[in-house]
Every structure is written in structure tokens, then in C-alpha cells.
């Protein structure tokens, strides 16, 4: 948001610079990082220190445990990434051209997918934060800016495809079509949640490894 204010003061209300900041920073870095923190943080530490045993030793379906964690992770990611995105977008571009709406929607749908993806990571590895950051920063941000293939295989681009249609003209563009983006987002979210729940069913106490 600080960045938004500075850019706004320097460049005035310009939709293009809004796109640069929102696309280059908010969606490329902030949303995935918040997703990593919220997604892995929702379950990783409990698995790490063993207190997750109190949750798992209950007559509650593991699926329910995971979905509850997922709802919290999604909510946290949305609050701490989509809301700042909206505020930044309003500062940068006002309501002009639908840019603010486009990026907010993109951040919202990306929040869901990231939270699910990183929550699953939390059930797979104890180094979920590192793995998650590597994915978010190296794959999506770095490789994505050089290799077009990597770009079309990233949550960020799929989310942009979904949100992009809400902006006027070709201001907000993505590597993939809206439908592809939406379908892939749903597939990734559901698959990650399903696999995470599966991992929880066969979770081994940390002391045994």
C-alpha cells in the first residue's frame, strides 16, 4: 500500500501503472507469500510439535479437520492479501476501467487456490514454508517472467485470467483463457484439499521419523 501511494503521487491516476504495481507486486508476490504463511501455518506447526494428535484422536473425519483448516487459511489469505490489493488498487486507479475489481477478484480466487495448495504442502513436508516460498517466488515470479511455459502453469496466471475479464479492454491479460484458468483453479484447489485430507489419515507422529 505504501508502494501504491508513492506510485500514485508520482504517476497520477494511470491505469497502466496500476496494472504494473498490482500485477508485479500484489498478485505476483504478496498473495502467494500470504498464502504460504496462512496455508502452511494453519497446520504445519501443529504437525511439527505433535499437538495435532489432540485433533486427530477424535471421532472427527480427517476430511472435516482439513476442510476446517482450509476455510481458516482461505479467510486469512483473503483478508491479508485481497483486501490490501483492493485498497492499493483504489489508491492507484480509483474505480476506473474496472482494474481494481479485476485484481481484487483475481486475488480472491488466487487466495483459495494458494491456501489449499500450501495447506496440502504443510501435511506433506516439514519444510513446507521453504518449498512454498520456492514455488511462489522462483517458479511463479522468477521463472514465470522468463519462461512462458512456466507462466501458463501458475496459480497467478489462472487467477488473472478469471479476474482479467472484469477490467475494460486488454489492460489485464493472462497467458490462459478465462475458462481454462477457472477450471484449473478449481481442479488444483480440490485436488490439493483431497490429497491433504488423505495425508492426514495416514499422518505419522513426528517422533517416529
Amino acid at each position, binding site marked *: 500500500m505504501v508502494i501504491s501511494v508513492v506510485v500514485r503521487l508520482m504517476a497520477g491516476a494511470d491505469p497502466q501503472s496500476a496494472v504494473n504495481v498490482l500485477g508485479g507486486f500484489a498478485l505476483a508476490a504478496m498473495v502467494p507469500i500470504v498464502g504460504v504463511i496462512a496455508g502452511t501455518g494453519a497446520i504445519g506447526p501443529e504437525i511439527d510439535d505433535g499437538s495435532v494428535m489432540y485433533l486427530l*484422536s477424535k471421532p472427527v473425519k480427517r476430511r472435516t479437520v482439513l476442510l476446517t483448516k482450509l476455510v481458516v487459511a482461505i479467510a486469512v489469505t483473503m483478508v491479508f492479501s485481497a483486501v490490501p490489493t483492493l485498497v492499493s488498487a483504489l489508491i492507484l486507479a480509483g474505480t476506473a476501467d474496472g482494474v481494481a475489481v479485476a485484481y481484487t477478484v483475481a486475488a480472491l480466487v488466487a487466495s483459495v487456490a494458494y491456501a489449499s495448495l500450501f495447506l496440502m504442502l504443510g501435511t506433506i513436508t516439514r519444510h513446507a514454508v521453504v518449498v512454498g516460498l520456492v514455488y511462489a517466488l522462483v517458479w511463479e515470479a522468477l521463472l514465470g517472467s522468463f519462461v512462458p511455459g512456466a507462466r501458463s502453469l501458475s496459480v497467478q496466471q489462472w487467477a488473472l485470467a478469471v479476474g482479467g475479464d472484469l477490467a475494460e479492454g486488454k489492460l489485464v491479460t493472462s497467458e490462459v483463457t478465462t475458462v481454462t484458468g477457472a477450471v484449473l483453479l478449481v481442479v488444483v484447489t480440490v485436488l490439493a484439499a483431497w490429497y491433504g485430507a488423505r495425508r492426514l489419515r495416514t499422518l505419522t507422529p513426528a517422533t517416529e521419523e
Partner: protein
Amino acid sequence: MTTIKLDHVSRWFGNVVAVNDITMDVGPGVTGLLGPNGAGKSTLINMMAGFLSPSAGTVTLDGRPVWRNEDIYREIGIVPEREAMYDFLTGREFVVANAELHGLGDAEAQRALALVEMEYAQDRRIGTYSKGMRQRVKMASALVHGPSVLLLDEPFNGMDPRQRMQLMEVLRRMGAEGRTVLFSSHILEEVEQVASHIEVVVAGRHAASGDFRSIRRLMTDRPHRYLVRSSDDRALAAALIGDPSTSGIEVDAAEDALLIQAADFGRFTALLPRVARDHGIRLYTVSPSDESLESVFSYLVAA
């Protein structure tokens, strides 16, 4: 009345065998799972608690499989060894949360807290609790749904004698009520004070099983080794070997002592001072040379 049945259960991690072909029934009453550190006690308990799948064999609770079956937690209460809890909660919040996960409420949580006598500190944060208090809150969280099976992993670790007595009392009461209580420990004295039945596990194998008297007997009836120093080692050796309670004597010149193998421990301990007095020999040192738990266990495994 609930029985946990282990049928030819093995568990390995990579190429390390933690539990090796164990078959046992754990029934109502208090059962102690005794064994040295690293014997596979925690692995066994984790398999009984449904946290680990057996690599081979089956673990069942009254005929129902334990692994991948969340419903068994209606009947099982678990007290993990690890200290980690939700430190930012108060004791009461923690137990209430556990109750709610069972679909129960405040009343049951209060009852469980009363059972472990933790009401006086229930509104303090768990982070401020001592080890014994944590252990008792863990107990309360495991007892909140009135389980018929209670599994405790090293519950007495790090407790002071008073806390130990209190916990033993709770366990005895649970056992007397007909619940199936199983706890692990590496200290024989601890186990025999509470458990009516003892299962001994060594190096992943089921070494012995029985009430504490039979386990005690197994442990004391084994050949004992003593290191003895006296004013006249050879004369003492000659006098001792005449009695059947002594099965072997070695003169250790380097140590300047006798290494005596006693076949009958009770008779030997009475014989030694008498023989020494009769022959006018002064005893300088009499010390059991292999009383360590490890040697006791290795004897049990060989038996």
C-alpha cells in the same frame, strides 16, 4: 469391557525393525508396558492408538480395526508423551475444546478436570503449567469422553514423587472401574506399583508377560553376578564353591577381586557372610556387577 488385540504385529521404519512380531491382548485393568528406551514401546502405543499402520499383522479393538478408523476414538483416550500443547489456551479452554471435538460440552470438561484435580489452575494458561500439571491436563483431555480404553505414553516421566502418586491413584481407579488402561515405562518399580499385568518389550520383541510377581521372579531368579574383594580371595572362593548356590567363581587378578556367579540369589546372599565369618575372612567389597536394567532385560530376552 474393551480389549485391544495385537496379532503378529510388526512395524519397521526403512530397514530398522521397531516392533517384531508381537502378539498380545490388553484387557480391562491396568497394564504396564515395560521396556528399556528404544524398545519399541511408543511405536506399539502409536499403533494401538491408530497413529501408525502396522507393517504386518493387525491391531483391533473388540474386533474392529484401529488403523484408519476415526470412530474408535469414541472409546480410546490418548495421553501422548510429547509436551507440545496449545500453550496459549488455559487448561479449561483446552479441555473444553477437546470435549467439543467429541460433541460434548462444558459439563464433561469440568468433570474431567475434577477427576485429575486441576480445577484450581484451570484458568491459567497452559504455558505457565509445570510438567506434572501439563500431564494432568493431558489426562483430562483424554478422559473427557469417558473412554473405555486409556493409552498413556511414559506418563510418569519428569514427575515429582507426589505427582507420581496422584497419577498412579487415578490410573488404579480407572482400572478398578473396568477400563482398559495401558501405560509405558522403563522403570520396573513404577510399573509394579500400579499395573496388575505387565508386558515386557525388549528390542522390539515381546520378552515376557504376566503379573508383577512373575515378572519380579523372572528378574530376581536369574543368575546374579557379584564382585567380591576380601582379605583372602582364594580361601573364600574355595569355601563358596562347595555350596550349590554358587555356580562359578573367577579370580580376576587385574582387579584383585573375585567374580562370582550365583545360581540361587537368595541362598547366596545368606551364605556369603556366614562363610566369611566361619573362615575368619574379612569382606571388603560385595557389589552386584550387572544390576543394570539392560542386563536384566537381556536376560529376559534370552530366557
